[in-house]
């Protein structure tokens, strides 16, 4: 049985999609959830969907690194130290290599990677970290291991999360912090719908039909994040898990 009672979980990208579902399920399992997202209205929707608990919301741009510690400090003062972190905030883009530039790399990596690492740095401080340790989960992507045209920024950033998680897993083990990546495949979310609009129809059809088990739902992903947040996964760290309906096998 997965049990998250008495755990305080911070979720970025909690306004929508996978992040929203992770927050909701964590609350269903007893956690207090600290939701961070850019869109205040959507964040309110998430908060209103959570099961009873001491939940908080912060409407913020997580690439404003200077403001992150204030958010975390405020949250800890209200609900207590942090037991879990899910980095679900992320942007995707489909831009051919010949149109990529430093500005585009920076904007993609800032949200997808650097903010995750910055938040991890802050949460690993004793004053914010639950004495029993914590579980950090970075939502990477099956595209962190596979390649696709027009995705050098996105694939590169999702792959970077995997490398960073492994390094952190080694460094933070003595603080009882586990760090893992999960790699979702094609999940039915607004972001995926937007991504498909920039691809030719035949590409979209190919992508949707590729996974032996078809496309997934946000709840499929949150089932895994809930397990990784729980004590049931206490011996799992430094790993990356596909959760993609078998997409990566072909």
């Amino acid at each position: 049985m997965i049990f998250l009672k008495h755990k305080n979980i911070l979720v970025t990208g909690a306004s929508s999609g996978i992040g929203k579902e992770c927050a909701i399920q964590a609350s269903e399992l007893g956690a207090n959830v600290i939701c961070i997202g850019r869109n205040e209205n959507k964040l309110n929707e998430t908060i209103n969907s959570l099961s009873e608990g001491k939940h908080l919301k912060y409407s913020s741009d997580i690439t404003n690194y200077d403001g992150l510690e204030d958010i975390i400090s405020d949250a800890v003062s209200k609900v207590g130290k942090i037991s879990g972190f899910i980095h679900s905030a992320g942007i995707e883009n489909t831009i051919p290599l010949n149109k990529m530039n430093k500005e585009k790399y920076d904007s993609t990596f800032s949200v997808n990677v650097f903010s995750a690492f910055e938040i991890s740095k802050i949460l690993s401080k004793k004053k914010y970290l639950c004495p029993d340790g914590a579980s950090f989960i970075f939502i990477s992507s099956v595209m962190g291991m596979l390649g696709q045209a027009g995705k050098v920024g996105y694939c590169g950033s999702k792959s970077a999360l995997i490398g960073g998680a492994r390094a952190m897993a080694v460094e933070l083990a003595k603080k009882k912090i586990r760090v893992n990546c999960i790699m979702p495949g094609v999940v039915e979310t607004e972001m995926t719908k937007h991504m498909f609009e920039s691809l030719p129809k035949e590409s979209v059809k190919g992508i949707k039909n590729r996974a032996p088990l078809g496309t997934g739902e946000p709840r499929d992903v949150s089932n895994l994040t809930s397990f990784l947040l729980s004590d049931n996964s206490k011996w799992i760290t430094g790993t990356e898990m596909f959760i993609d309906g078998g997409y990566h096998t072909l």
Partner: protein
Amino acid sequence: MKTSEFIEILVEDLELENVDLAVDTELTELDDYDSLAIMSIIAIADEHFDTTLTAVQLANINTVQSLMDLIGSDKFE
């Protein structure tokens, strides 16, 4: 933007060789008009015209002129 400038951008970014691109050229008939070309056109529209095009919209164009119409004829001289 001048039409001639737009055509130059298309030739460069789509790496069209030995093609005398004009407004009545059928893009869809070009050897190099593939999914990467479509991606490049979406990126061009975003970068130069601050306009978001989708692959579904681009499936309905054929000539350079129809692409310019899709972007917005008011954006061209």
